[in-house]
C-alpha cells in the first residue's frame, strides 16, 4: 500500500500536503569518499519521514545536507517549490528548518528556560542597543517570546526543570530540552537526529508520544533518523533506507519491511 501523489488524509486523520522539500540527485563527497551517492527523495508537508540505515550509511550526512551544513557537490535541494541556493546554516534556520543533534548540543551552564529561549533568536528583531537598555521593542519581544517558550515547556511537560541548569539533567530530559529549543523556532520542517539514542523503553515511549503530538498539534513536518526499528515503523508515514551512501528503499513502513535489499542490508550480506 503506497501513498497517493496528491494531498491526502492519513488513517488517523492527519493532513498530508504537497512536497515541502525535495532532494534531487544529491551526491556528497569528502575528498575521495562518497558519503552520499545520487540520492533523490522528497518530504511532504505534515508527514513524519524517517531515514534509516546501518552505521555509516550516510544518514547524518543527509540530514546535514538538508539543514544546509554540508553543500553537496552534485544535485539540488528544492524547498517549497524552488531550488534552494547554497546557504549558511543560520539562513536555513531562518527559512524554517529546525533540528536537534545526535550528540546533544545544549548550553550546559544555562537553565532549561534560557536554552529554549535561544531557540527564539531568529524571531527577535530588536537591535543590540534596544536589548541592552531593555526598552520598547526589546521588552515587548521578550514578553511575547517567553510566552511562546512557556507554551512549549508546558507542551513537553518540563515545567519542573524550567530553572534547572541543563548540565544537571539526565540524558533523556536533555533530549527533550533540545526538542523544545528546536520547536521554539517554530520550524516548518523539524530534523531529528537520533532522538531516541541511548534511551530506555519508557523514555522512548515518552519521546515517541511527543514527536507524534508535535506533528499533530503544530502540523510540523518531521524528518528523523533513528536506529530503533520498532519506533521508526510505528512513527513514520514513509521511510528512506540508505546503505553505503545509496538509497536502497523508499516507501511506507510496510513496503520497506518487505523490501529484500533492506532485509539484506540489515541482516548482513557480503558486499563486494
Amino acid at each position, binding site marked *: 500500500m503506497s501513498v497517493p501523489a496528491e494531498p491526502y488524509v492519513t488513517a*488517523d*486523520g492527519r493532513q498530508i500536503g504537497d512536497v515541502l522539500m525535495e532532494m534531487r540527485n544529491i551526491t556528497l563527497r569528502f575528498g575521495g569518499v562518497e558519503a552520499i551517492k545520487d540520492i533523490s527523495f522528497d518530504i511532504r508537508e505534515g508527514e513524519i519521514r524517517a531515514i534509516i540505515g546501518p552505521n555509516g550509511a550516510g544518514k547524518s550526512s543527509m540530514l546535514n545536507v538538508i539543514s544546509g551544513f554540508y553543500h553537496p557537490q552534485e544535485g539540488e535541494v528544492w524547498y517549497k517549490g524552488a531550488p534552494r541556493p547554497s546557504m549558511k546554516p543560520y539562513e536555513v534556520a531562518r527559512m524554517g528548518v529546525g533540528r536537534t543533534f545526535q550528540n546533544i548540543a545544549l548550553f550546559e551552564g544555562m537553565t532549561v528556560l534560557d536554552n529554549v529561549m535561544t531557540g527564539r533568536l531568529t524571531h527577535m528583531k530588536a537591535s543590540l542597543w534596544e536589548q541592552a537598555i531593555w526598552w520598547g521593542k526589546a521588552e515587548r519581544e521578550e514578553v511575547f517570546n*517567553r*510566552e511562546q517558550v*512557556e*507554551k512549549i*515547556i*508546558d*507542551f513537553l*511537560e518540563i*515545567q*519542573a526543570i*524550567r530553572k534547572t541548569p541543563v548540565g544537571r539533567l539526565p540524558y533523556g530530559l536533555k533530549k527533550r530540552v533540545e526538542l523544545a529549543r528546536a520547536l521554539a523556532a517554530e520550524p516548518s520542517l523539524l530534523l531529528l537526529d537520533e532522538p531516541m539514542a541511548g534511551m530506555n523503553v519508557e523514555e522512548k515511549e515518552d519521546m515517541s508520544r511527543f514527536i507524534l*503530538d508535535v506533528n*499533530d*498539534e503544530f502540523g510540523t513536518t518531521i524528518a528523523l533518523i533513528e536506529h530503533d526499528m520498532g519506533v521508526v515503523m510505528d512513527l513514520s508515514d514513509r521511510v528512506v533506507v540508505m546503505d553505503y551512501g545509496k538509497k536502497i528503499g523508499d516507501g511506507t513502513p510496510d513496503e520497506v519491511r518487505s523490501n529484500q535489499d533492506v532485509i539484506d542490508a540489515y541482516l548482513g550480506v557480503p558486499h563486494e
Partner: protein
Amino acid sequence: MTATTTPAGDLCSVPALLRRNAREFGTRTAYREKEYGIWQSWTWAETLQEIEWLAMGFLALGMERGDHVAIIGRNRPDHYWSMVAAQMCGAVPVPLYQDAVAEEMAYVLEHCGARFVVCGDQEQVDKVIDIQERLHQIEHVLYHDKRGMRKYDHEHLNWLRDIRDEGKASHYRHEEELHRREAELSYDSTCVMLYTSGTTGKPKGVVLSNRNIIETSKNSSEFDHLRAEDEILAYLPMAWVGDFIFAMGQAYWNGFCVNCPESADTMMTDLREIAPTYFFAPPRVFESQLTSVMIRMEDAGSVKRWLFRHYMALARRVGPAILDGKPVGPIDRLRYALGEFAVFGPLKNALGFSRVRVGYTAGEAIGPEIFEFYRSLGINLKQLYGQTEASVFIAQQPDNEVRADTVGVVSPGVEIRIDETGEIFYRSPGTFVEYYKNPESTASTKDAEGWVATGDAGFFEEGSGHLRIIDRAKDVGKMADGSLFAPKYVENKLKFFPDILEAVVFGNARDYCTAFINIDLTAVGNWAERNNIAYASYQELAGHPKVLETIRFHVEDVNRSVAQDPMLSACQIHRFLVLHKELDADDGEMTRTRKVRRRIIEEKYADLIAALYDGSESIFTTTEVTYEDGRKGSISATLKLVDAATAPVGKSQGMAAE
C-alpha cells in the same frame, strides 16, 4: 443534637457561601493556578461569574437534579468550579482518584450512575471512553486540557471551556432555572459524595450533606482561627475528603485563597513560591521532604554539615518548648534565634514553610522523630484524627498542646465514646448521611443514635484528656504467647529511617515478629552513588548485600527502641526481607491514600511470609504487577531472608547493656 443545627443566616450550601464571598470579599483572590510559568489568579467575584457560566452550560447539556457528576483530574480551579457548578444545578459532585486504573473507576462510575464526567486531560478521557464501552450510561464527557483531543469523536465529548461559553451565551434562557435550583438547596441536600478507598473490600460512596461540610468547616476554622487572609496549596487528591474540607469547605467558609500547582512534579517549587499559611499533608509528604533534606545535607560541605547538626541538636532540645510558649532559658533563646537566622529560617524557606501558622498531618500516624523535626524548626505542625465518614475531624491538637503520641482533644461539636473493647465511636454534625445504595453497611457503621464506629482502638489519657490511638482495632492482635501485637507502632519506627519507605510487620498469633521492607529508592540510590555501588534496577539495589546489611542495622535499632516498652517488647523483629518491588496502589497492595492493605499483602505474598517463619535462607518468588495503563506483567526474584538481633526486654535493659 446533630439534627438541630441550623445554618448561619442563609449560608446553607456551598453556592450560598460562594455568593457571600463574592459579595463581601469580591476583590480578594479566591484561586490561583500556575500556568505557563506565571501564577494566574481569580477573585471571588470572577470565580462566581465563572461558576455561574459553567453551571448554565451544564443546564444547557441537560443536567438534572440528583445527577451524579464525576470529576477526574488534578487540582485545578476548573475542576473545583465544576463541583460547585454541579451543586448549583442540584447535582452531586463525585471526585475520583485520577491515578486509578480504568477498572477501579468503572466500579465507582457504575455505582454512582454518573451521567456526566469532567476529565482533566486525554489520559482520563481515554479511561472513561474505555469504561463507557461496557457501561453505556455516561452521556457527556467534558475535558479541560485540549491537548491530543482533536481527533476524538466529539458527539458526546466537549471542551469544558466551550460549555462555559455556551452557558455565558445562553444565560437569558438558563438564569431563572439556575436560581430556582439554587434556592432549592438546603442544609440537608447532598454536598458531595466521596468514595472511601477502604483497606478492605469495594469502595463505598460516603454521602455528605451541606450540614456535614459547613458545620465541620465552621467548627474547625474557629478552632484554628483561620481567616480570609490564609493561603493553602491544593495538591492532595481531590477525591480525598481532606482536600474537599480544606480546599472547598474551609476555603468557602473563610474565603481564603486556594493555590493550584502547575503540575504534580512542580509541587515542591510551587509550595516554596506560595509559602502557604495553612498547610496539610499526609505523613508521607513530610517524610519525603525530610529525606531529601537529609540527603542534601550529606552532600553538603563540612562547615554546613556541622552548622546543621549543631543547630538541629539545639532545636530538638528547645525548639518545641519555644513553639509552645514554655519557659526556656535566655541563653538558649538567644542561641535558637541565631539558629533561626543561620539554619532554621533558610531551611524553612527552602521547604516552603516560612509562613505556616497551622500545619496538620493526618491519614496515618507520623513517626515521632519526623514530627519533632518539624516542630523543633518552629513549624506549628499538629496532628488530627479523622475519617471520611466524619467529614474529617474527630480529634485534633490545639496549639501549644502538641505531642507526638496523641491525636489531641475531641474536635468542637464532636462526641466520643470508647466501648469496652477499646474501639472508638463518635457522633458529630459532620457525621455522614449514608453510604450510597448500601443500607446494610450504613446500618452496621452508624447506629440509630448516630454513633459511628471508627474501627480504631484507643483511649483517653488520664490528666490531659488527649485521645491516643493504638492501632486499627482489626490489626491489633495477640502473639502466640499472649503478648500484645501492634504492627503499626513498629512500622512507624522503621519508616523513620530515610532508607525505608514502607514496612509491613507480621506476627499475629505467631511466635515472633517478621517484616517486609521497601527501600526508598531516592535515599538508597543516593547512598549507592556515593559509595560507588552499581545497580541496574530497583530490584537489584533492593537485593544488594550491603543494602540488606544497612537495613539490618536499622531493624536492630528499632528492636532496641521497641524493647524499651515492656508492653510492646514482643513486637521486635526477628527476621525480615527486602521486597523486590515497591508496594503499589495499582496492584491493590495499598489504598490510593497509601495505606497498607495488610490482608491483601498477606494473601499475595503468602509464600514469602511462610519462608520468614520456616527458617529458609532465601526464596524464589514471582509476583504479578499492574502497569499504570492497566496491563499486567510479572517479575520474579530470589529474595534473601535476613535474621536480625533482638534486644533484651524492658527495664532490665540498662543492666544487660553493661
